[in-house]
């Protein structure tokens, strides 16, 4: 089992004719993910990586229906809002926004629209996710030989604010002789479509996930939501968290490093988050290298 994706999932790539979209389509197909179509207005009928291109998301839905349909968006930042809204209007139930540097206003707009239709948005600035041997969205794990070196079906759920660390933590898990259930890069933006607690709820319900590793970040309040989740009894599996950015305390307030969401704010630093999480029984890693040792 896995969260977010199954063997029935059908993926469409918005922006498939662009360099990144094409690369992602290839990467997903290589991993056995069922990429059924791509979108690029004005390019209907063309083929990219053996995948048929349509003018609109709606055209794809008209052809295939929208059951089990999942979208991955690879368009430039200025076109992200239009692409997201197109998928939302077509009732695509899960939309992965791989685009980086989407204006917050556009993100907030689409998140509000998606919420009304109960649509799940992952990202923006997400690299995607991977459920070993089931499929992946985006290029998480990299080329075929590398991805199989790092990812192996197992019981550890992985959530990361950082794309690189999604891979790095998964590699630690593998080095320790364990495997991953699903590894998700939630993206580094201020507003996250799918948050830590959204995923922890899914991992809680997933029988194959026995523990979760989470790479967080200073700034924002998403880690504090976990405290409430655990106190409400909605998550009870072992959880190890690393919150990067102790050094950020040496920087002036309001500074922005690492990701867009990692703003230095008093009371929301790495230390405050670690203390709050520790108080509800979450294991806090001082170094991210220690995470896998703590969970096993």
């Amino acid at each position, binding site marked *: 089992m896995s969260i977010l994706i199954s063997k029935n999932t059908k993926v469409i790539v918005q922006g498939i004719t662009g360099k990144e979209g094409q690369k992602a389509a290839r990467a997903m197909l290589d991993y056995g993910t069922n990429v059924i179509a791509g979108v690029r207005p004005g390019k209907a009928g063309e083929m990219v990586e053996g995948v048929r291109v349509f003018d609109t998301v709606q055209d794809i839905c008209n052809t295939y229906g929208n059951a089990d349909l999942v979208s991955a968006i690879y368009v430039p930042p200025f076109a992200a809002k239009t692409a997201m809204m197109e998928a939302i209007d077509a009732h695509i139930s899960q939309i992965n926004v791989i685009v980086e540097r989407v204006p917050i206003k556009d993100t907030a707009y689409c998140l509000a629209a998606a919420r009304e239709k109960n649509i799940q948005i992952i990202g923006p600035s997400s690299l995607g996710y991977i459920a070993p041997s089931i499929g992946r969205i985006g290029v*998480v794990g990299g080329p075929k030989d*590398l991805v199989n070196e790092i990812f192996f079906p197992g019981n550890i759920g992985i959530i990361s604010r*950082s794309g690189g660390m*999604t*891979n790095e933590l998964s590699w630690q898990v593998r080095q320790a002789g364990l495997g991953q259930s699903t590894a998700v890069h939630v993206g*580094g933006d201020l507003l996250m479509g799918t948050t830590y607690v959204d995923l922890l709820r899914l991992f809680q319900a997933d029988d194959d996930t026995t523990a979760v590793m989470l790479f967080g970040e200073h700034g924002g309040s998403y880690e504090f939501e976990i405290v409430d989740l655990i106190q409400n009894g909605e998550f009870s599996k072992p959880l190890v968290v690393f919150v990067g950015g102790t050094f950020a305390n040496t920087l002036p307030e309001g500074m922005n490093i690492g*990701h867009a969401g990692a703003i230095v704010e008093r009371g929301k630093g790495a230390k405050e988050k670690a203390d709050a999480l520790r108080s509800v029984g979450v294991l806090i890693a001082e170094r991210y290298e220690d995470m896998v040792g703590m969970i096993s």
Partner: protein
Amino acid sequence: MNLYEFEGKQLFEKSGIAIPHGFVIRRGDNVVSKYNEFDIVDVVVKAQVLSGKRGKNNAIRFCSSADEVQQATEELFAMDVRGQYVTAVWVEEKLNIAEEHYMSIVYDTTNKQPVFIYSHEGGMDIEDVMEENVIKIPLDIRDIEWNGGNNLWEDGLREIIKKLWQCFLEHDARIVEINPLVQTRDNKWVAVDAKIALDDDAFFRHGSTNSPQVTNWEEFEPRTMMGRLPTDREIAVKKIDEGEKYYQGTAGKYIEMDGDIACLFMGGGASIANMDALMRVGLKPANYTEYSGNPPREKVYELTKIVLSKPGLRGLWIVGVVSNFTNVKETFLGTIDALDELKPSFPIVIRRDGPFGEEGRKLMQDCAERNNLTMKIFGKEVGMGETAEVLAELVK
């Protein structure tokens, strides 16, 4: 990008929110003639810095003559405010204040929408106001006009709220804050301070190529949150990133710091964790620098050269995650070009893996041999943080 008070006030004014009459003083300006021209006797003289708490730090002065303004300006330019460099001084009319209120709009990450925050107790930090005296109203970013939340406010106040919402939307702001929002004795509402943070990712719709009605963000002067003017290296790195649009944002972070270990990190999240790791082994970073995505070779070359250009370096740490798709060989070639040219004599420790990782490390090894560099290279068999310890040993 965070704005100075005087810049924020200009945006408020454009949105129809009243601000006190005032003028900007720069270093070298003739203060006396500016004050005399202004023709209002009682003024407030305020240091322009990117942090708050100016009042408590003696960075706001009340003056009533040219001499006083002259002296206050000189003093303000000579000080820093909580470590922040004073960029300019803003002089404005002193108002007859009846009441001070607080008002802001920020993004609430829990609801993922903006939230309007108001208190009738303005003039102090909103964190210090009792919870029951703070009103929070969730907003919907899709509302192009907002009525100000019905009948909670008198008409004058409601007008300000509507305009503040317009200001927030029009300028792609992350934060708009008026504190204090003053009600004068003659019953006018005036924004006496302005705190605005703009969303850098919305730059594409606020540049010189956009409509003339749009405030051109390119005209804002360069700034850094580090409490000083941006250094030459910081400005140079920004320039590198301006190149071809497709690659913008892949190599743009350089913050100059006090230490002597040059840092070249890959991956936003890992870079922060690795700064922590470096400090844990007792080394001090000369800079914070990170690239991610697939920056072209030339960009990495220029970035590496800038990272290595700081005097007094004792080591170089090049560390990154097992990348998902960044081509390690291509990006390393940029660094190799720089190392071939500069041949640094201090120790270099590298940890990196991912697509073409082995090829990249082999080329790096060749570079070390032909230039006689002290270099240790690791792949994913060794953790990132462990290599900080290796560097610490070598530097000793």
